[in-house]
């Protein structure tokens, strides 16, 4: 029943991208998102696509797995694209193709729609390269390290990271537990598949109560085990696996810096996304 909830879609393999520092990957992902929104014309987006293609190739994750992440938000993309197509009115001069009451389809709207959909695609695919190549634990380690400056304002960075990694660590355990309880209740004739919304919600009670009880039991056990090993928060705590920047990270940063510079130049040189229309309609 819950087999498709593979949280943290980590794809286990060895590659250039996999062995990059999680901090570098996080920063690069953020910069990549900036690059997507910085790009003002299709040439800029083409550069972003090139960068993404390089990242996917060097991550050795099958292209299908990267695409699968888009499937989840495909509805949102299609929905916003359609709204944009029919109701785009920004800008003074529209090259109108077709009009019916308030619905206007113009060349600008079509360009805007394609642009927006492309941006969303690139956004989701880029971030999923991060989650496909980085284990959730490495990711929280990276976040903790990046948030270290916040310790100056007494923000509990270490504790927050610990909470996150415990939560991530227990998701598979609790999914297993849920599957086991669902099976046990099914064996007693529980029916989760038929009936209306309310009946189905009610049918979940025999699963949720034992799950909650077991989550509390596990939390208590874990707390005891941590106490027994003298855990006392971040004070004086050292790391077993230290994060290290390597030449790979330097190369990634260089490439992305190049990408952003390139995009800025392309923006200046070719102008906005509608500039292409001037070329067609002025002729």
């Amino acid at each position, binding site marked *: 029943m819950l087999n498709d909830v593979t949280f943290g879609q980590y794809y286990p393999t060895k590659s250039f991208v996999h062995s990059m520092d999680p901090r570098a990957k996080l920063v690069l992902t953020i910069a990549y998102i900036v690059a997507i929104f910085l790009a003002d014309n299709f040439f800029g987006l083409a550069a972003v696509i090139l960068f993404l293609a390089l990242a996917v190739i060097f991550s050795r994750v099958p292209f299908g797995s990267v695409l699968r992440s888009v499937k989840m938000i495909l509805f949102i993309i299609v929905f916003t694209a359609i709204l944009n197509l029919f109701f785009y009115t920004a800008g003074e001069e529209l090259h109108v193709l077709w009009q019916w009451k308030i619905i206007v389809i113009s060349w600008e709207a079509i360009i805007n729609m394609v642009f927006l959909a492309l941006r969303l695609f690139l956004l989701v695919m880029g971030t999923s390269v991060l989650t496909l190549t980085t284990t959730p634990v490495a990711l929280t380690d990276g976040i903790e390290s990046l948030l270290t400056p916040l310790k100056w304002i007494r923000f509990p960075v270490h504790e927050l990271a610990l909470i996150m990694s415990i939560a991530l660590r227990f998701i598979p355990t609790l999914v297993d537990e849920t599957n086991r309880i669902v099976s046990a209740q099914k*064996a*007693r*004739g529980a029916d989760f598949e038929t009936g209306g919304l309310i009946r189905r919600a009610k049918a979940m009670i*025999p699963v949720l109560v034992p799950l909650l009880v077991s989550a509390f039991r596990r939390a208590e056990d874990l707390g005891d085990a941590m106490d027994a090993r003298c855990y006392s928060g971040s004070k004086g705590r050292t790391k077993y696996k230290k994060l290290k920047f390597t030449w790979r990270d330097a190369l990634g940063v260089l490439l992305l810096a190049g990408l952003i510079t390139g995009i800025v130049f392309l923006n200046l040189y070719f102008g906005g996304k509608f500039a292409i229309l001037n070329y067609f309609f002025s002729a």
Partner: protein
Amino acid sequence: MQIDAKGLTYIYNPKSPFASTALSGVDLSIAEGEFFGIIGHTGSGKSTFVQHLNALLKASGGSLRIGEYDLTDKKCKFLELRSKVGMVFQYPEYQLFAETVEKDVAFGIKNFSKEKTEDEIREAVKEALETVGLDWNAVKDASPFELSGGQKRRVAIAGVIVTKPEILILDEPAAGLDPLGKKELMELLHSIHGGWCKTIIIVSHDMDEIAENCTRAAVFSGGRVVMEGKPSEIFLRADALLEMGLDIPVTAKCARILKQDGFSLDTDFTCDDFVAKVLSLCGKGGAEHAQ
């Protein structure tokens, strides 16, 4: 009802990097009336196999029939089947959820027999609780969470046997119980075996439990059945079992040592039989010594 599995295969997470074959061609028949033991270490596929018997997992390949039910057929009446094949999971006390013991035990029968009246259900629940050795008046209104560990397990078992399944499957039923609790549990199983419950299947690590209780057993390894037969036959091949990383009963261990010293025992590896055979051997040896 007879259980027939032929070439049963099951793959977890098929078509993903995490795909793993849990069963690769299991052929096993369990006749009505058996007290069947399933042995195997963690990951051998034994738990996966028993979950098929209850249609909780659907086979990736092969065939599985239980009585008149064909479990590989999508049109099979699974609810009806589940009321006839009871399944007690490992640590069944972790599935308790209702406010009172009575409501929890009634859960199964309410799901399976919707036409039953409140009185009939109450009667069935009372009988199930008494079968597992709990005092009806003392526990019926108690919260299942305030009972002791052993009592919780009894309530959970009552919640499965309340529908009087013809086949009862128990996954590690004695895990985590103290020796007395284990003994009482096995006595309970023997007391219902042969009545409305025709076949009992237990999955276990505990070889003494298998040797003591089962009429027949199968050893799982790597998703296959590698040995099958009476416990007395299986435990004769102690070396093969040890090689697989499995344990053997205490009686078999003693018999092995005796064999190394040149005494061969013709025992079925139950405690009583073993002691009797050893005593008779001692008698013989002693008599020879006296001459």
